[in-house]
């Protein structure tokens, strides 16, 4: 059972981590709680389905196109809808949620509610410590690791990363220093949406592609980001793993309550936040607000 919990916890947490990373990035930089984040993941999944299954394009090529498409869409949505209201958190949340629902309804009209499947990059499965794991799940874990490394490299080794960090620390000073804050925020949103696109490519083959697929991950992503500390990419990954393990523990220790897996992992988040309100790796809220 320990091997099962370990492997399944890693798998579940890894898939949450991919989605949480992009969300954490845009919040850390642009201070935007973009509730449409997982809707971009859904759009990427449909894009890949349409191009690879319906149009017959190679899967890898479809995935690259999906990432570029969602990145561009993220930039457009931010520039048109959110840039002007970014200082009003409530407006941002409502608008971004509305955007997510709009995408859902549009996809429902175009594709109906029928389930579809994106083929996996690597079909088949293997056994680790006696536990059956699909290759696609392993790919999801590896990709989340690469994304984390990639974000670290981008932020610490590139001029763009320095500009992004400057904007994240202080909008006004960064603006005074000649950094185009609006452009940095737009680009960051594009990168975040692109990361959601990567999640769509890697995670979507594990589930069914349908217009409601963005709602459940949104709750878990919010939980991971809040638990990890708003704006901390490292925190988001660790929190995603904690939530993944919490869910897995429920399934193995209380199988009759597996429908409560989501609720219990959120309770874990609440307990941690009560002890440490800023999250595991976040700064204290008051400092954040100043």
């Amino acid at each position, binding site marked *: *059972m320990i091997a*099962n919990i370990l*492997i*399944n916890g890693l*798998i*579940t947490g890894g898939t949450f981590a991919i989605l949480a990373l992009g969300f954490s990035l845009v919040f850390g930089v642009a201070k935007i709680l973009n509730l449409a984040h997982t809707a971009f993941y859904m759009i990427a999944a449909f894009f890949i389905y349409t191009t690879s299954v319906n149009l017959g394009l190679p899967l890898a090529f479809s995935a690259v196109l999906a990432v570029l498409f969602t990145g561009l869409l993220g930039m457009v949505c931010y520039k048109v809808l959110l840039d002007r209201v970014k200082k009003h958190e409530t407006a941002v949340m409502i608008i971004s949620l509305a955007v997510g629902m709009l995408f859902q309804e549009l996809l*429902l009209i175009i594709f*109906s*509610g*029928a*389930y*579809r*499947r994106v*083929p996996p990059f690597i079909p088949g*499965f293997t056994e680790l410590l*006696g*536990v*059956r794991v*699909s290759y696609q*799940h392993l790919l999801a874990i590896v990709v989340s690791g690469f994304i984390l490394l990639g974000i670290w490299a981008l932020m610490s080794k590139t001029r763009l990363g320095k500009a992004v960090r400057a904007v994240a620390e202080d909008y006004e000073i960064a603006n005074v220093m000649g950094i185009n804050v609006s452009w940095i925020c737009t680009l960051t949103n594009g990168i975040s949406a692109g990361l959601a696109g990567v999640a769509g490519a890697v995670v979507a083959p*594990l*589930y*069914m592609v*349908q217009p*409601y*697929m963005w709602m*459940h991950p949104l709750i878990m992503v919010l939980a991971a980001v809040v638990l990890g500390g708003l704006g901390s990419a490292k925190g988001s990954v660790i929190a995603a793993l904690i939530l993944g393990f919490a*869910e*897995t523990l429920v*399934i*193995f220790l209380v*199988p*009759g*309550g*597996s*429908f409560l897996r*989501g609720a219990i992992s959120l309770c874990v988040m609440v307990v941690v936040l009560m002890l440490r309100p800023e999250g595991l790796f976040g700064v204290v809220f008051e400092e954040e607000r100043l």
Partner: protein
Amino acid sequence: MRSGVNQSSRFNRWVLTVFGVSLVAVFLFSAAEVLAKPTVKFGVITTTKYPITTHQWWGAQMAAEEINAAGGVNIGGVSHDIDLIKAESNELASVTDAANAMEKLLTVDKVAAVTGGLRGEAVLAMMELMADHKKIFISSGSGSKETSEKVAENYDRYKYYFRNTYINTVYMGKIQFALLDITAAKVREVLGIKTPKVALLIEQAMWGNVQIEVAKKLLPEMGLEIVGVWRPSPHTTDVTAELTAIKSAGAHMIFTGMTGPGGPVVSGQWGQLQIPATLSGYNAFGSWEGTWKATGGMCAYEITYDAYAHDVAITPKTIPFMEKYIQKYGQKPLFVAGAYDALYIWKEAVERAGTIDADKVVAELEKTDYIATYGRVVFHPQGHQFPHDVIWGPGYMTTVGFQWRDGKQICVWPNGEALFPALSTDPGWKGLKYQGTQDVQLPPWMVEYWKSKK
């Protein structure tokens, strides 16, 4: 003076012309109204947001078109065309929305009768409105026994409710256990396992609670051992952990009960990971024809049931109906397409009653003995435990147990054998086998796994 007279007469001519044209128009419109064939409104309450429920509308639509093409419904000697009114219930997400949709059908659209409904909780809410407004409601989707039990509790209030399909959850449970029984027999035959181990994977929903209670009593009697109970959400998107837990528990068989969108997730991930256990039971979304494509064929060897299976002639009407339905809608009908028969059943009752007056139609509906596309429809009478429910059993509605193989739903039950005594002692099951019925096959990976363990 002369020009004034001319103007005046031109004006008068203009007024007379307009007046004359108006009179003719009024006459023509009135004549059209009088000469137009009278219609009777029939409501279909369903949600087209999911692939399986769309069939409910399609079935009703096809019936209405056929009935109208054949002359309509004869109500008291006057032919009426059916005017089908669709109401989006959104019931899988919101019972309140479903109740509001029903209210609109009854109070705004003023339909004479309604068919539809799928989710038990929503149908119960719809029944209250049906009772308040005294309108016929022929449920053609939900299997919750609680709806018929309401009729038994308060017949005078709820007598307007009938269920032509699906069979209720008590009967559904019996079919699931029957499928489990024939699968267990195959496990014993092929693998030589005397007491196969069973994992219960049943969604967290009202109807599932009863299933589990019954399973705990019945499975030991059937010579099966329960190794665990897993209750995922009906809307689950991932059951990988549950499936690996089931494999670790050493289960040879998985007994499923999924009516929500999580159904294809279960069968898809079970096939993807090649969990070495059979998968049988009920998967509502899994009986949709598109499941094969949606799971990439990963649902192969899953066993579930529906009112219809490919190429299985349950009654003389089954195959012609399925062929026409597939030609029109491009898919094999699902059980909710029984809304087709709901319209015909209502039509015949109304024609016998000579009116759409609900109380008189109820009396005629209770006399229904109708050969439908999925079996013979006779309703349990008042006084029965489930009044106004379609009778399940040999000679009535049986449903068809099928196994997914090579993209087709192959009939595996009824298989001509008597049912396990606790399920039914009706001798009619012995010898009942539809043409095209084949034996259950175990998934090859399962056979390989367990044979290697010996």
